[in-house]
């Protein structure tokens, strides 16, 4: 599929990433190029160590490539400082983790409010955003609950609310259903699909779960640091 580069939310241009472990160079990504257009919902699959998480970290500006450029929402991440990257993340990105990673000492409301504390918003504006986000994930009635008082599925939905509270251009999800039972996983995937279709949020989701991958618009398969041919139909048939 040909992409219009100017329309891309994420562009990885000839990106390589190596890690050093005990003086041995371990290449994780090799000369990878990737374009994720606006409004896309891409699932990345691949065996352990294929570079999925690394790819996600690079797109999030949590890690820097050894060579090549990463451009997100028109911003070359390579030119940003640590502080610049932090600000960039708080303004443009949302994260969803496998382990939900909510702050155990904060209520659902306060957890969702967390990224908004970094934005120039007053208390009332923050409240509006938080309530809107919690409504979207249908947990408005649980806003005063602490994470330990919620089920795994609910926790993950709070995490999603936190990720969308600041209206991000790009949502990065790392095994969002990895820790959930089938029903909760369904709910979470429904939610992601909704965000993608109704709100036009671009989503990149790393997953091991074929059922989750099937909900994406596009499937990318990573193997030993490079994309190999794969599509959703292929996934269906392999089952």
């Amino acid at each position, binding site marked *: 599929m040909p992409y219009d580069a100017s329309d891309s939310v994420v562009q990885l241009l000839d990106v390589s990433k190596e890690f050093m472990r005990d003086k041995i160079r371990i290449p994780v990504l090799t000369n990878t190029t990737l374009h994720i257009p606006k409004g896309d919902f891409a699932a990345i699959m691949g065996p352990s160590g294929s570079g999925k998480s690394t790819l996600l*970290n690079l797109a*999030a500006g*949590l*890690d820097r490539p050894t060579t090549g450029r990463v451009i997100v929402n028109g911003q070359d991440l390579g030119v940003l400082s*640590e*502080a610049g990257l*932090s*600000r*960039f*993340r*708080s*303004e443009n*990105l*949302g*994260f969803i*983790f496998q*382990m939900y*990673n909510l*702050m*155990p*000492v*904060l209520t659902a409301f*306060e957890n969702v409010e*967390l*990224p908004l*504390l*970094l934005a120039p918003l007053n208390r009332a504006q923050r409240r509006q955003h938080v309530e809107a986000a919690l409504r979207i994930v249908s947990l408005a009635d649980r806003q005063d609950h602490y994470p330990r008082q919620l089920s795994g599925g609910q926790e993950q939905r709070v995490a999603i609310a*936190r*990720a969308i509270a600041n209206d991000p251009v790009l949502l990065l999800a790392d095994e969002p259903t990895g820790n959930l039972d089938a029903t909760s996983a369904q709910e979470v995937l429904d939610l992601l699909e909704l965000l993608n279709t109704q709100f036009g949020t671009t989503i990149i989701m790393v997953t091991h779960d074929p059922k989750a991958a099937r909900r994406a618009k596009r499937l990318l398969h990573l193997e030993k640091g490079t994309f190999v041919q794969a599509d959703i139909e292929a996934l269906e048939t392999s089952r």
Partner: protein
Amino acid sequence: MKFIPLIIRNVLRNKIRTLFTGSSIAMSLFLVVLLYSFLMIQDEILEATKPYNRIMVTNVQGLTGNLPIAYLDRIRKMDEVRSAIPFSWFGGRYREETIPFAQFGTDSKYVTDVLQEYKVPDDQLDAWQADKTGCVVGALIAKNKGWKIGDKIPLKGDIYPVDLELTVRGIYDGDSTVDREQLWFHFEYMDEALKAKQQPMAGNAGIVMLRAKSGPIMPELMEKIDKQFASSDAPVRAMTEKEFQQSFMEMMGSVKFFINVISGIVVFSLLIVAGNTMAMALRERTREVAVLKAIGFGRGTILGMVLCEAVIIGLLGGVAGALGAKLLFATVDFSRWLTGFGFLYVPWRTALLGLVLAGFIGLASGIIPAWRAAQLSVVDGLRKIV
């Protein structure tokens, strides 16, 4: 400001740990505040005496030297002197007590003029003047020893080979900087007893305390006194009350040095204790810190939050320790068990110093953990399980 709720939640997250760290800081700060109060009160009392323009005259050889009582009149005649009294340390034994409390032979007519902040009711002062063997005692020591007006106080001579049989005729009082644990009796009573025994020690005032007419003339006056008696048998040294008390403190010698050493060690120890707590707390929260950074919290914010948390814990301990010490010494009178320590209280200055110290300990203890949290790689932090 927006982050305060999260910081406070983190402080309260592991309540036992915060409580114990706070308590550890509190106990040690209590000690430091107590030790420093001991030093600082001396200063505070010295400062308090400044407006009273008092000068102490002793033999050049110090307290053990001879100061003829005849000098008293010569000093009183000086133009710059408003009033003067002998102030002779008797050091007698009261009952079975091994350490003497403060007993001074003085002049009932002028003592309340020289020691103007020591208040004696007029009728009691008159009663004392009328009784040759009468005495006046401080309110605090009277309370602790249960003395009332009319009580007999027998004192066995130790430095002087005479015994005194005193009757309480008055009780003086004053504010917290006034030493309310003294006993005053008539110098003549002691001196006549010595003369009767033909003791060579008779006629020695030990100390003459005087009140100058004004503050600015004091340096000149002291020089004048020094000069006047320079070539006599007993040359004297005049110094301000402050200098006199200081020289007395100096005799305590190394105690001050040891208080400083111990305090230094304690603060260092607290840095380790509090630092360990913060390190433990953040080790458990590695993942959370990584998440905060992932969603856009900058290094500075993380650093500030951790430092703030550490300062709060430090201050919790400081409030309990420093203000606790202040409160304890304000409500409990320790002179009941320790005669001579009635002056012991915790000045605000010391309590606040303790509080500042606690905040500093918190801040310093948070530096390494905060730095490490700020430097934490998000990728590693998220990967870490615990």
